[in-house]
Protein backbone atom coordinates (compact mmCIF):
# COMPACT_ATOMS: atom_id res chain seq x y z
CA UNK A 1 0.00 0.00 0.00
CA UNK A 2 1.39 3.43 -0.89
CA UNK A 3 1.46 6.22 1.67
CA UNK A 4 -0.88 8.31 -0.54
CA UNK A 5 -3.39 5.43 -0.80
CA UNK A 6 -3.45 5.04 2.98
CA UNK A 7 -4.19 8.74 3.56
CA UNK A 8 -6.86 8.78 0.86
CA UNK A 9 -8.68 5.87 2.49
CA UNK A 10 -8.27 7.43 5.93
CA UNK A 11 -9.70 10.72 4.68
CA UNK A 12 -12.66 8.98 3.03
CA UNK A 13 -13.51 7.06 6.17
CA UNK A 14 -13.14 10.13 8.33
CA UNK A 15 -15.51 12.09 6.09
CA UNK A 16 -18.04 9.29 6.18
CA UNK A 17 -17.74 8.90 9.93
CA UNK A 18 -18.21 12.62 10.55
CA UNK A 19 -21.22 12.66 8.24
CA UNK A 20 -22.81 9.67 9.97
CA UNK A 21 -22.17 11.07 13.47
CA UNK A 22 -23.68 14.45 12.58
CA UNK A 23 -26.63 12.83 10.81
CA UNK A 24 -27.36 10.51 13.71
CA UNK A 25 -27.03 13.18 16.37
CA UNK A 26 -29.22 15.59 14.43
CA UNK A 27 -31.88 12.97 13.92
CA UNK A 28 -31.75 12.13 17.62
CA UNK A 29 -32.19 15.80 18.47
CA UNK A 30 -35.13 16.07 16.09
CA UNK A 31 -36.74 12.98 17.55
CA UNK A 32 -36.37 14.45 21.01
CA UNK A 33 -38.20 17.58 19.84
CA UNK A 34 -41.01 15.71 18.14
CA UNK A 35 -41.72 13.00 20.69
CA UNK A 36 -44.12 13.82 23.47
CA UNK A 37 -42.52 14.76 26.73
CA UNK A 38 -42.39 11.51 28.77
CA UNK A 39 -42.87 13.58 31.91
CA UNK A 40 -46.16 14.93 30.60
CA UNK A 41 -48.87 12.62 31.90
CA UNK A 42 -52.23 13.58 30.49
CA UNK A 43 -55.42 12.22 31.95
CA UNK A 44 -58.47 12.20 29.70
CA UNK A 45 -62.06 12.02 30.90
CA UNK A 46 -65.33 12.88 29.25
CA UNK A 47 -68.98 13.50 29.98
CA UNK A 48 -72.09 14.16 27.98
CA UNK A 49 -74.27 17.23 28.01
CA UNK A 50 -77.86 17.51 26.83
CA UNK A 51 -78.17 13.84 27.70
CA UNK A 52 -81.13 11.90 26.44
CA UNK A 53 -81.81 14.37 23.61
CA UNK A 54 -80.82 14.29 19.95
CA UNK A 55 -78.47 17.16 20.83
CA UNK A 56 -76.49 15.04 23.30
CA UNK A 57 -72.83 15.71 22.77
CA UNK A 58 -69.51 14.76 24.32
CA UNK A 59 -67.30 17.06 26.35
CA UNK A 60 -63.68 15.95 26.82
CA UNK A 61 -61.40 16.99 29.65
CA UNK A 62 -57.62 16.73 29.62
CA UNK A 63 -55.54 17.30 32.70
CA UNK A 64 -51.76 17.29 32.55
CA UNK A 65 -49.38 17.06 35.45
CA UNK A 66 -47.46 19.88 33.77
CA UNK A 67 -48.62 23.43 34.42
CA UNK A 68 -50.60 25.41 31.88
CA UNK A 69 -53.68 27.57 31.70
CA UNK A 70 -57.23 26.32 31.35
CA UNK A 71 -58.34 26.32 27.73
CA UNK A 72 -61.69 25.55 26.11
CA UNK A 73 -61.86 24.59 22.45
CA UNK A 74 -65.23 24.36 20.74
CA UNK A 75 -66.06 23.06 17.28
CA UNK A 76 -69.30 22.49 15.45
CA UNK A 77 -71.31 25.48 16.61
CA UNK A 78 -72.03 25.77 12.88
CA UNK A 79 -72.48 22.35 11.30
CA UNK A 80 -71.48 23.37 7.78
CA UNK A 81 -68.10 24.71 8.92
CA UNK A 82 -66.61 21.28 8.61
CA UNK A 83 -62.89 21.94 9.00
CA UNK A 84 -63.51 23.39 12.45
CA UNK A 85 -65.35 20.44 13.93
CA UNK A 86 -63.23 17.84 12.11
CA UNK A 87 -60.11 19.34 13.63
CA UNK A 88 -61.83 19.41 17.03
CA UNK A 89 -62.80 15.75 16.55
CA UNK A 90 -59.16 14.84 15.89
CA UNK A 91 -57.90 17.02 18.72
CA UNK A 92 -59.36 14.73 21.38
CA UNK A 93 -56.79 12.11 20.38
CA UNK A 94 -53.84 14.35 21.23
CA UNK A 95 -51.73 13.36 24.19
CA UNK A 96 -49.45 16.35 24.56
CA UNK A 97 -51.68 18.90 26.27
CA UNK A 98 -50.42 20.89 29.21
CA UNK A 99 -52.53 22.44 31.93
CA UNK A 100 -56.23 21.73 31.60
CA UNK A 101 -58.08 21.56 28.31
CA UNK A 102 -61.77 21.11 27.66
CA UNK A 103 -62.91 20.22 24.14
CA UNK A 104 -66.45 20.18 22.82
CA UNK A 105 -65.87 18.91 19.28
CA UNK A 106 -69.48 19.09 18.13
CA UNK A 107 -71.34 21.71 20.10
CA UNK A 108 -74.31 21.58 17.72
CA UNK A 109 -74.15 17.88 16.97
CA UNK A 110 -77.32 17.65 14.92
CA UNK A 111 -76.11 20.51 12.71
CA UNK A 112 -72.78 18.70 12.18
CA UNK A 113 -74.59 15.50 11.22
CA UNK A 114 -76.68 17.43 8.72
CA UNK A 115 -73.68 19.58 7.71
CA UNK A 116 -75.92 22.62 7.95
CA UNK A 117 -75.22 25.93 9.72
CA UNK A 118 -78.03 24.94 12.09
CA UNK A 119 -80.71 22.29 11.63
CA UNK A 120 -83.11 23.49 8.98
CA UNK A 121 -80.96 26.50 8.08
CA UNK A 122 -81.75 25.84 4.45
CA UNK A 123 -85.47 25.56 5.27
CA UNK A 124 -86.26 28.68 7.32
CA UNK A 125 -84.98 26.91 10.41
CA UNK A 126 -87.52 24.08 10.21
CA UNK A 127 -86.21 20.55 10.61
CA UNK A 128 -88.46 17.62 11.56
CA UNK A 129 -91.19 20.09 12.52
CA UNK A 130 -88.94 21.82 15.04
CA UNK A 131 -87.89 25.45 14.66
CA UNK A 132 -84.15 26.08 15.03
CA UNK A 133 -82.13 29.27 14.99
CA UNK A 134 -78.44 30.13 14.64
CA UNK A 135 -76.76 28.79 17.79
CA UNK A 136 -74.02 31.42 17.47
CA UNK A 137 -76.56 34.19 18.01
CA UNK A 138 -78.20 32.66 21.05
CA UNK A 139 -75.50 32.70 23.74
CA UNK A 140 -75.87 32.64 26.73
CA UNK A 141 -79.16 30.84 26.00
CA UNK A 142 -81.94 29.99 28.44
CA UNK A 143 -82.58 26.89 30.55
CA UNK A 144 -86.27 26.91 29.60
CA UNK A 145 -85.99 28.61 26.22
CA UNK A 146 -86.24 27.36 22.63
CA UNK A 147 -84.32 24.28 21.55
CA UNK A 148 -81.41 26.41 20.34
CA UNK A 149 -81.42 28.51 23.51
CA UNK A 150 -81.28 25.35 25.60
CA UNK A 151 -78.27 24.05 23.65
CA UNK A 152 -76.51 27.40 24.17
CA UNK A 153 -77.37 27.34 27.86
CA UNK A 154 -75.96 23.82 28.34
CA UNK A 155 -72.71 24.86 26.66
CA UNK A 156 -72.40 28.02 28.76
CA UNK A 157 -73.06 26.02 31.91
CA UNK A 158 -70.34 23.45 31.25
CA UNK A 159 -67.81 26.05 30.09
CA UNK A 160 -68.46 28.39 33.01
CA UNK A 161 -68.07 25.52 35.46
CA UNK A 162 -64.65 24.78 33.93
CA UNK A 163 -63.65 28.45 34.38
CA UNK A 164 -61.17 28.81 31.51
CA UNK A 165 -58.65 31.55 30.85
CA UNK A 166 -58.72 31.05 27.08
CA UNK A 167 -61.49 29.98 24.74
CA UNK A 168 -61.19 29.12 21.07
CA UNK A 169 -64.15 28.67 18.78
CA UNK A 170 -63.32 26.94 15.49
CA UNK A 171 -65.30 28.36 12.60
CA UNK A 172 -65.19 28.85 8.86
CA UNK A 173 -66.43 31.56 6.55
CA UNK A 174 -67.82 31.33 3.02
CA UNK A 175 -65.29 33.86 1.75
CA UNK A 176 -62.11 35.66 2.71
CA UNK A 177 -61.93 39.20 4.03
CA UNK A 178 -59.92 39.87 0.86
CA UNK A 179 -62.74 38.77 -1.45
CA UNK A 180 -64.48 41.53 -3.45
CA UNK A 181 -67.56 40.66 -1.37
CA UNK A 182 -65.68 40.23 1.86
CA UNK A 183 -66.67 37.97 4.72
CA UNK A 184 -64.69 36.79 7.72
CA UNK A 185 -62.47 34.09 6.19
CA UNK A 186 -58.72 34.17 6.91
CA UNK A 187 -59.19 35.94 10.22
CA UNK A 188 -58.64 35.50 13.93
CA UNK A 189 -61.37 37.41 15.75
CA UNK A 190 -60.66 38.35 19.35
CA UNK A 191 -63.45 38.96 21.81
CA UNK A 192 -61.97 41.79 23.84
CA UNK A 193 -58.84 43.91 23.94
CA UNK A 194 -57.07 41.46 26.29
CA UNK A 195 -56.73 39.06 23.38
CA UNK A 196 -55.64 41.58 20.75
CA UNK A 197 -51.89 41.18 21.15
CA UNK A 198 -51.95 37.39 21.30
CA UNK A 199 -54.16 37.33 18.21
CA UNK A 200 -51.66 39.57 16.43
CA UNK A 201 -48.72 37.37 17.45
CA UNK A 202 -50.54 34.25 16.27
CA UNK A 203 -51.41 35.85 12.95
CA UNK A 204 -47.85 37.03 12.38
CA UNK A 205 -46.38 33.61 13.18
CA UNK A 206 -49.01 31.85 11.09
CA UNK A 207 -48.49 34.15 8.11
CA UNK A 208 -44.78 33.31 8.19
CA UNK A 209 -45.72 29.70 7.37
CA UNK A 210 -47.91 30.55 4.36
CA UNK A 211 -46.97 30.35 0.72
CA UNK A 212 -46.71 33.71 -1.06
CA UNK A 213 -49.88 32.85 -3.01
CA UNK A 214 -51.91 32.33 0.19
CA UNK A 215 -54.01 35.12 1.66
CA UNK A 216 -52.40 36.27 4.88
CA UNK A 217 -54.59 36.12 7.97
CA UNK A 218 -55.61 39.28 9.78
CA UNK A 219 -56.92 40.02 13.25
CA UNK A 220 -60.33 41.47 13.74
CA UNK A 221 -62.47 42.50 16.69
CA UNK A 222 -66.20 42.76 17.30
CA UNK A 223 -67.60 39.22 17.24
CA UNK A 224 -71.37 39.37 16.71
CA UNK A 225 -73.66 39.71 19.68
CA UNK A 226 -75.02 36.36 20.82
CA UNK A 227 -71.95 34.52 19.59
CA UNK A 228 -69.89 32.25 21.84
CA UNK A 229 -66.90 34.57 21.40
CA UNK A 230 -68.90 37.71 22.20
CA UNK A 231 -70.54 36.26 25.30
CA UNK A 232 -67.37 34.90 26.86
CA UNK A 233 -65.23 37.80 25.69
CA UNK A 234 -67.49 40.61 26.83
CA UNK A 235 -69.55 39.16 29.66
CA UNK A 236 -67.26 36.59 31.15
CA UNK A 237 -64.14 38.64 30.29
CA UNK A 238 -62.08 35.63 29.17
CA UNK A 239 -59.51 35.75 26.36
CA UNK A 240 -61.48 34.48 23.40
CA UNK A 241 -60.69 33.82 19.78
CA UNK A 242 -62.61 32.65 16.75
CA UNK A 243 -60.54 31.01 14.02
CA UNK A 244 -62.14 31.59 10.64
CA UNK A 245 -60.75 29.62 7.72
CA UNK A 246 -61.92 30.36 4.20
CA UNK A 247 -64.26 27.78 2.67
CA UNK A 248 -63.13 28.70 -0.83
CA UNK A 249 -60.03 26.60 -0.07
CA UNK A 250 -59.89 22.80 -0.04
CA UNK A 251 -60.86 20.96 3.14
CA UNK A 252 -57.39 19.51 3.75
CA UNK A 253 -55.81 22.94 3.53
CA UNK A 254 -58.38 24.49 5.86
CA UNK A 255 -57.89 21.70 8.38
CA UNK A 256 -54.13 22.20 8.21
CA UNK A 257 -54.62 25.92 8.79
CA UNK A 258 -56.86 25.30 11.81
CA UNK A 259 -54.30 22.84 13.19
CA UNK A 260 -51.39 25.17 12.56
CA UNK A 261 -53.20 28.02 14.32
CA UNK A 262 -53.94 25.79 17.30
CA UNK A 263 -50.32 24.66 17.48
CA UNK A 264 -49.12 28.26 17.38
CA UNK A 265 -51.62 29.11 20.12
CA UNK A 266 -50.45 26.22 22.32
CA UNK A 267 -46.82 27.10 21.70
CA UNK A 268 -47.50 30.64 22.93
CA UNK A 269 -49.45 29.78 26.06
CA UNK A 270 -47.27 26.86 27.12
CA UNK A 271 -43.93 28.61 26.75
Amino acid sequence: MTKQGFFTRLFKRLCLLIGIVIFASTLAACKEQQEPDPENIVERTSKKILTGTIYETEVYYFKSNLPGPKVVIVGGIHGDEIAGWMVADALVERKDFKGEIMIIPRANILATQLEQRYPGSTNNGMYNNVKYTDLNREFPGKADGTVTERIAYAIVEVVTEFSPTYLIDLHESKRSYSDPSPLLGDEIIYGNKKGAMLALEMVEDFNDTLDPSDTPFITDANPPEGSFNHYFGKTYDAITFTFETNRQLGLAKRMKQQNDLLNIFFQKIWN
Partner: protein
Amino acid sequence: MKKLWLLLSVIVLGFALVSCGGDDKDKDPNPNGGEKQLDVELADTFKSFAKNKEVYLTTVGQADIDIVQNILENAAGLVEDQDFIRNHELTADQVPFGSVVFLVTGTSSKGLGAASTDVQAEKNRATAFVNKANAGQISIVLLHVGGEARRGSLTDPILNVACPGADLMLVVADGDQDNLFTNFSKNNNIPLYLFSKATKMVPAFAKLFE
Protein backbone atom coordinates in the same frame (compact mmCIF):
# COMPACT_ATOMS: atom_id res chain seq x y z
CA MET B 1 -13.09 8.82 -5.88
CA LYS B 2 -11.95 11.13 -3.11
CA LYS B 3 -14.23 13.84 -4.46
CA LEU B 4 -17.12 11.39 -4.59
CA TRP B 5 -16.74 10.53 -0.92
CA LEU B 6 -16.43 14.18 -0.07
CA LEU B 7 -19.58 14.95 -2.03
CA LEU B 8 -21.42 12.09 -0.32
CA SER B 9 -20.38 13.37 3.09
CA VAL B 10 -21.50 16.89 2.26
CA ILE B 11 -24.88 15.58 1.07
CA VAL B 12 -25.32 13.55 4.26
CA LEU B 13 -24.32 16.56 6.35
CA GLY B 14 -26.64 18.84 4.41
CA PHE B 15 -29.54 16.43 4.73
CA ALA B 16 -28.91 16.10 8.43
CA LEU B 17 -29.05 19.85 8.89
CA VAL B 18 -32.09 20.35 6.67
CA SER B 19 -34.01 17.54 8.35
CA CYS B 20 -34.21 19.55 11.54
CA GLY B 21 -34.43 22.97 10.07
CA GLY B 22 -38.16 23.59 10.74
CA ASP B 23 -37.59 25.81 13.71
CA ASP B 24 -35.30 28.15 11.85
CA LYS B 25 -38.27 29.43 9.90
CA ASP B 26 -39.72 30.83 13.08
CA LYS B 27 -36.63 32.74 13.95
CA ASP B 28 -36.11 36.26 12.87
CA PRO B 29 -32.86 36.31 10.89
CA ASN B 30 -32.30 39.77 12.20
CA PRO B 31 -33.60 39.99 15.75
CA ASN B 32 -35.28 43.32 16.34
CA GLY B 33 -34.84 43.90 12.62
CA GLY B 34 -31.74 46.01 13.23
CA GLU B 35 -34.22 48.51 14.53
CA LYS B 36 -32.63 49.23 17.91
CA GLN B 37 -30.88 52.34 16.71
CA LEU B 38 -34.03 53.39 14.92
CA ASP B 39 -36.01 52.92 18.11
CA VAL B 40 -33.82 55.50 19.85
CA GLU B 41 -34.06 57.87 16.91
CA LEU B 42 -37.83 57.41 16.79
CA ALA B 43 -38.16 58.12 20.50
CA ASP B 44 -36.19 61.36 20.06
CA THR B 45 -38.41 62.37 17.15
CA PHE B 46 -41.54 61.60 19.15
CA LYS B 47 -40.34 63.44 22.24
CA SER B 48 -39.46 66.51 20.15
CA PHE B 49 -43.14 67.30 19.76
CA ALA B 50 -44.97 65.05 22.21
CA LYS B 51 -43.10 65.04 25.50
CA ASN B 52 -45.37 65.45 28.55
CA LYS B 53 -48.40 66.11 26.41
CA GLU B 54 -51.82 64.61 26.90
CA VAL B 55 -52.28 61.48 24.79
CA TYR B 56 -55.44 60.43 22.98
CA LEU B 57 -55.96 57.16 21.13
CA THR B 58 -58.52 56.73 18.41
CA THR B 59 -59.11 54.93 15.13
CA VAL B 60 -60.22 56.24 11.79
CA GLY B 61 -61.40 53.04 10.13
CA GLN B 62 -62.46 51.15 13.27
CA ALA B 63 -59.71 48.53 13.14
CA ASP B 64 -56.59 47.62 15.09
CA ILE B 65 -57.10 50.13 17.92
CA ASP B 66 -56.95 47.29 20.48
CA ILE B 67 -53.56 46.24 19.16
CA VAL B 68 -52.14 49.74 19.52
CA GLN B 69 -53.71 50.07 22.96
CA ASN B 70 -52.07 46.78 23.98
CA ILE B 71 -48.71 48.06 22.75
CA LEU B 72 -49.17 51.36 24.63
CA GLU B 73 -50.09 49.54 27.82
CA ASN B 74 -47.73 46.59 27.69
CA ALA B 75 -44.67 48.13 26.05
CA ALA B 76 -44.88 51.74 27.17
CA GLY B 77 -46.55 50.96 30.49
CA LEU B 78 -49.33 53.51 30.02
CA VAL B 79 -52.61 53.17 31.85
CA GLU B 80 -55.91 53.94 30.17
CA ASP B 81 -57.73 56.99 31.57
CA GLN B 82 -54.65 57.88 33.56
CA ASP B 83 -51.95 58.26 30.91
CA PHE B 84 -54.10 58.26 27.81
CA ILE B 85 -57.73 58.51 26.76
CA ARG B 86 -59.09 55.91 24.38
CA ASN B 87 -62.18 56.68 22.38
CA HIS B 88 -62.85 54.96 19.07
CA GLU B 89 -65.28 57.72 18.13
CA LEU B 90 -63.13 60.62 19.34
CA THR B 91 -63.70 63.85 17.45
CA ALA B 92 -61.20 66.64 16.91
CA ASP B 93 -63.14 69.11 19.02
CA GLN B 94 -62.87 66.77 22.03
CA VAL B 95 -59.08 67.04 21.96
CA PRO B 96 -57.60 69.92 23.99
CA PHE B 97 -54.98 72.25 22.55
CA GLY B 98 -51.47 70.83 22.72
CA SER B 99 -52.47 67.16 22.88
CA VAL B 100 -51.08 64.25 20.89
CA VAL B 101 -53.48 61.99 19.02
CA PHE B 102 -52.49 58.44 18.14
CA LEU B 103 -54.53 57.97 15.01
CA VAL B 104 -54.87 54.29 14.12
CA THR B 105 -55.64 53.80 10.43
CA GLY B 106 -56.80 50.71 8.54
CA THR B 107 -60.46 50.01 7.93
CA SER B 108 -62.53 47.01 8.95
CA SER B 109 -65.98 46.70 7.41
CA LYS B 110 -67.07 44.75 10.49
CA GLY B 111 -65.60 47.46 12.73
CA LEU B 112 -67.46 50.15 10.78
CA GLY B 113 -70.68 48.16 11.20
CA ALA B 114 -70.13 47.63 14.92
CA ALA B 115 -69.51 51.36 15.39
CA SER B 116 -72.50 52.24 13.17
CA THR B 117 -70.33 54.42 10.97
CA ASP B 118 -69.00 54.41 7.41
CA VAL B 119 -65.93 55.33 5.40
CA GLN B 120 -67.16 58.85 4.63
CA ALA B 121 -67.86 59.61 8.29
CA GLU B 122 -64.43 58.26 9.26
CA LYS B 123 -62.83 60.32 6.52
CA ASN B 124 -64.60 63.42 7.84
CA ARG B 125 -63.35 62.69 11.36
CA ALA B 126 -59.80 62.26 10.03
CA THR B 127 -60.06 65.55 8.10
CA ALA B 128 -61.09 67.41 11.26
CA PHE B 129 -58.05 66.05 13.13
CA VAL B 130 -55.78 67.05 10.26
CA ASN B 131 -57.26 70.57 10.11
CA LYS B 132 -56.62 70.98 13.82
CA ALA B 133 -53.06 69.67 13.42
CA ASN B 134 -52.41 71.99 10.49
CA ALA B 135 -53.57 74.88 12.67
CA GLY B 136 -50.85 73.89 15.13
CA GLN B 137 -53.31 72.95 17.85
CA ILE B 138 -52.60 69.21 18.16
CA SER B 139 -50.00 66.67 16.98
CA ILE B 140 -50.79 63.43 15.21
CA VAL B 141 -48.94 60.13 15.37
CA LEU B 142 -50.39 58.09 12.54
CA LEU B 143 -50.23 54.31 12.83
CA HIS B 144 -50.95 51.65 10.24
CA VAL B 145 -50.33 48.21 11.73
CA GLY B 146 -52.46 45.99 9.51
CA GLY B 147 -50.10 45.69 6.54
CA GLU B 148 -51.31 45.08 3.02
CA ALA B 149 -54.53 43.48 4.26
CA ARG B 150 -55.62 46.82 5.69
CA ARG B 151 -55.10 48.75 2.48
CA GLY B 152 -57.54 49.18 -0.36
CA SER B 153 -60.75 50.93 -1.20
CA LEU B 154 -62.02 51.17 2.38
CA THR B 155 -58.75 52.39 3.87
CA ASP B 156 -56.95 54.44 1.24
CA PRO B 157 -59.43 57.36 1.05
CA ILE B 158 -58.92 57.86 4.79
CA LEU B 159 -55.13 57.56 4.48
CA ASN B 160 -55.13 60.14 1.73
CA VAL B 161 -56.60 62.74 4.04
CA ALA B 162 -54.95 61.62 7.29
CA CYS B 163 -51.31 61.10 6.26
CA PRO B 164 -50.49 64.69 5.22
CA GLY B 165 -51.51 65.94 8.67
CA ALA B 166 -49.29 63.56 10.63
CA ASP B 167 -46.23 64.62 12.63
CA LEU B 168 -44.94 61.06 12.65
CA MET B 169 -45.97 57.87 10.87
CA LEU B 170 -45.41 54.35 12.22
CA VAL B 171 -46.25 51.75 9.62
CA VAL B 172 -45.90 48.01 9.07
CA ALA B 173 -43.81 47.86 5.90
CA ASP B 174 -46.08 45.42 4.12
CA GLY B 175 -48.67 48.18 3.96
CA ASP B 176 -46.27 50.44 2.09
CA GLN B 177 -45.54 48.20 -0.86
CA ASP B 178 -46.82 50.88 -3.22
CA ASN B 179 -44.84 53.57 -1.34
CA LEU B 180 -48.00 55.41 -0.34
CA PHE B 181 -46.61 56.22 3.10
CA THR B 182 -43.11 56.78 1.75
CA ASN B 183 -44.43 59.32 -0.74
CA PHE B 184 -46.47 61.16 1.88
CA SER B 185 -43.37 61.19 4.06
CA LYS B 186 -41.16 62.62 1.29
CA ASN B 187 -43.67 65.12 -0.03
CA ASN B 188 -44.69 66.45 3.37
CA ASN B 189 -41.44 66.01 5.25
CA ILE B 190 -43.02 63.67 7.81
CA PRO B 191 -40.76 61.21 9.66
CA LEU B 192 -41.76 57.68 8.67
CA TYR B 193 -40.68 54.54 10.52
CA LEU B 194 -41.36 51.21 8.87
CA PHE B 195 -41.52 48.00 10.90
CA SER B 196 -41.29 44.48 9.51
CA LYS B 197 -44.16 43.40 11.79
CA ALA B 198 -46.54 45.09 14.19
CA THR B 199 -44.99 43.23 17.13
CA LYS B 200 -41.67 44.85 16.21
CA MET B 201 -43.20 48.15 17.33
CA VAL B 202 -43.15 46.93 20.92
CA PRO B 203 -39.51 47.79 21.74
CA ALA B 204 -39.90 51.11 19.96
CA PHE B 205 -42.94 52.03 22.04
CA ALA B 206 -41.10 51.10 25.20
CA LYS B 207 -38.76 54.02 24.54
CA LEU B 208 -41.38 56.60 23.55
CA PHE B 209 -42.50 57.43 27.04
CA GLU B 210 -39.27 56.79 28.97
